[in-house]
């Protein structure tokens, strides 16, 4: 006589089966993917880079853990979201920054911008970016100096010597800056040190700037230098269906299109080249693939995501090229984060049969 159970233990409403993905698996996959650019940054910047990201990750985890204990919440620190926040923040600061600054930023990000809002899922702003904005305003100088030097900066020295009027000051201000700073301040440099703007384009071309940017061998924050690795990570996440193509494509596409139109219309001799520099440098790739795709702080529907991406691209363009700031990705995403409830309300999917 086969044994038949008298009562089944669990009653719940259907469905009774589930797909495998959980919040935890999604978060840890993203964290694992971020490890690749983080590890590569060691190759470019040395161990200092690991130290910075490491401190950020640890302070993020510790802050979340303490916060959840003090707020008497369920301990959810193992879901990996603060690891991502720490990694992203660590990867978006200069490599030689004093460690307390990114640590403070991460704590601020996790405590104020995530836990105070109600924990993962309830935060309005991307915590990593909000934390970065905080330290950016606290320590603007530290956050925009100590860049990695161009590998063959001396080439420019010879160039400028032959162009005449070379000074060590000019050399330093150009080789010690990120490509975006050079583009932004190009005309000022040219005026100050008495050379033409073409010298700067020359400098970029001789330095194989695009190649450097794609590989990651250029000035910039720890994780935002290698466009290639970030792109590969982004593709992997798309394949795993953790992020969708909507935001990266619309964000980068809008930024590129706007930049090209601007340079073309202002009579620049190399509009395509400069557009490509804009696309591959700064935080655009890291922002578009890993920060603007944070599901919590982005719209729900596919159309909403595209609108979000276009908004990010336009604001980045405005800040970077028209405005007075060198880098606009962070503010663009934060600004669009605030727009999400509005976008959600305006761009709902078209309901079946309506």
């Amino acid at each position, binding site marked *: 006589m086969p044994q038949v159970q008298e009562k089944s233990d669990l009653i719940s409403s259907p469905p009774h089966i589930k797909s495998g993905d959980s919040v935890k698996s999604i978060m840890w996959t993203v964290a694992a993917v971020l490890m690749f650019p983080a590890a590569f940054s060691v190759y470019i910047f040395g161990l200092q880079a690991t130290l910075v990201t490491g401190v950020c990750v640890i302070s993020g985890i510790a802050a979340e853990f303490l916060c959840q204990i003090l707020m008497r919440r369920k301990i959810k620190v193992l879901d990996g979201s603060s690891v991502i926040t720490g990694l992203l923040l660590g990867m978006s600061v200069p490599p030689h920054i004093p460690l307390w600054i990114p640590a403070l930023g991460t704590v601020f990000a996790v405590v104020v911008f995530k836990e105070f809002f109600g924990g993962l899922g309830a935060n309005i702003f991307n915590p990593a970016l909000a934390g970065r904005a905080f330290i950016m305003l606290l320590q603007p100088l530290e956050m925009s100096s100590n860049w990695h030097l161009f590998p063959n900066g001396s080439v420019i020295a010879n160039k400028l010597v032959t162009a005449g009027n070379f000074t060590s000051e000019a050399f330093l201000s150009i080789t010690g800056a990120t490509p975006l700073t050079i583009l932004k301040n190009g005309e000022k440099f040219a005026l100050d040190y008495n050379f033409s703007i073409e010298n700067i384009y020359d400098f970029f071309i001789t330095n194989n700037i695009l190649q450097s940017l794609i590989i990651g061998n250029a000035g910039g924050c720890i994780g935002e230098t290698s466009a290639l690795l970030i792109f590969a990570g982004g593709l992997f996440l798309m394949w795993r269906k953790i992020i969708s193509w909507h935001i990266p494509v619309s964000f980068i596409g809008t930024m590129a299109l706007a930049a090209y139109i601007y340079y073309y219309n202002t009579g620049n001799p190399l509009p395509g080249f400069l557009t490509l520099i804009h696309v591959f440098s700064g935080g655009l790739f890291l922002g578009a693939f890993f920060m603007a795709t944070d599901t919590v702080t*982005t719209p729900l529907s596919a159309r909403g995501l595209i609108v979000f991406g276009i908004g990010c691209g336009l604001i980045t363009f405005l800040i970077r090229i028209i405005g007075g700031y060198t880098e606009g990705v962070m503010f663009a995403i934060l600004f669009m984060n605030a727009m999400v409830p509005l976008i959600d309300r305006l761009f709902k999917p078209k309901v079946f049969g309506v």
Partner: protein
Amino acid sequence: MFRKIKGGVHPHDEKQSTEDKKIEFMPIPQKLFVPVHQHIGQASIPVVAVGDMVKKGQLIAETADGRGTPVHAPTSGKVTELGNYPNPIYGSSLCVVIESDGLDEWQENLLTTRNYENLTPEEMIDIIFKNGIVGMGGAAFPTHIKLAPPKDRHIDTLIVNGAECEPYLTSDHRTMMEYPDDVIKGTLIAMKILGVSKCYLGIEINKPKAIALMLEKCKGTPIEVVELETRYPQGAEKMMILAITGKEVPSGKLPMDVGCVVQNVGSLKAVADAVEKNIPLIERIVTVAGKTVKDPKNVMAKLGTPFSELFKYCGGFTGKNGKLIMGGPMMGQAQVNIEAVIVKATSGIVTISEKDVDYVPERACIRCGRCIEACTMHLMPSTLSILSEKGQHQTAQTDYNLMDCVECGCCYYVCPSRRNIVHYIRQSKAKNAMVRNAIKTGSK
């Protein structure tokens, strides 16, 4: 090329354990507990008394209103009790308890042979009603109502549903494999009743044998076999119509509003039996499956057979059960009691083993949008669930098309936060219905 729908999910279909097994006729259990309330609408009223001897196929309960269906005795024997017993849909309900005499004798002058071609649609509708035929795909909507749409609707297409998109279930598949002629006969009957000339039979491509067989059998008939993508909820009426005809059933409307009627293959077999042989709906094919079932199979079981008897027939259990479900694991109802019985809507009984029960507590929505991608009705399930949590059921209805949800459960299936979104949606619908009823009674 097969037809596709937008959205949906693709769970592992788990059909391999039963799809190639022949339907087995289960010995009649000692006692049958036939519920008089087997689907939406009013419960039927028993017309037999304790102590009566009944024959197989004899009417034992009549409809209280036009929306119900009559119930017939599944076997011959003695009515020993009219009492409340477990019902898989309603928890418990009035059942006619029949103690089998072991003879399984048909009621006289029941088994006739007629040709449907000599009958008028009205006569056939009446036969279908009298034989208690309902939709056997799971919803159990009375077939005589579905086949007689209001005169102002012009029906031009009959769609036969052989999709069977629920994991584990193979009863429709086996029906097509073993009773293809009956299915076709039933289809032709339904076509004559509806007066349509176009008919499609939709089958998911994970059933290549059924497709091949039906293609061959449908040669020379007006029935066109359509291959459909293996994707849940392909078998939902609106998805079926979209995939086959390309028409979207408008929000708040029914398939008949776009000229379509959808019938399940099992129901059509029952229609054929009723119209040509006058056999009432007293037994059905039930898939008994699940990872803990020792010998999963398809069983022809009498209505009123307790689930426990079926599991015994299938060798009992090999492990500890976490859940017992009537229907498939995506839309089926979890059962409290293993003594619940087979009703007209029981397409299968499925167990979920204890270790497969996903009992992770739900957490906050991370707005990943997977539910929106999976929603075949293109709603915003996450927003609906949050509105439900906050008690804003009216907003859900007015701004987020709450009532268009077909409760297929894809949103919960994909949710990484383990939110039972479809449950929240059902709660909202129920709350709104309560408010509506309160207003109605208040204004009277």
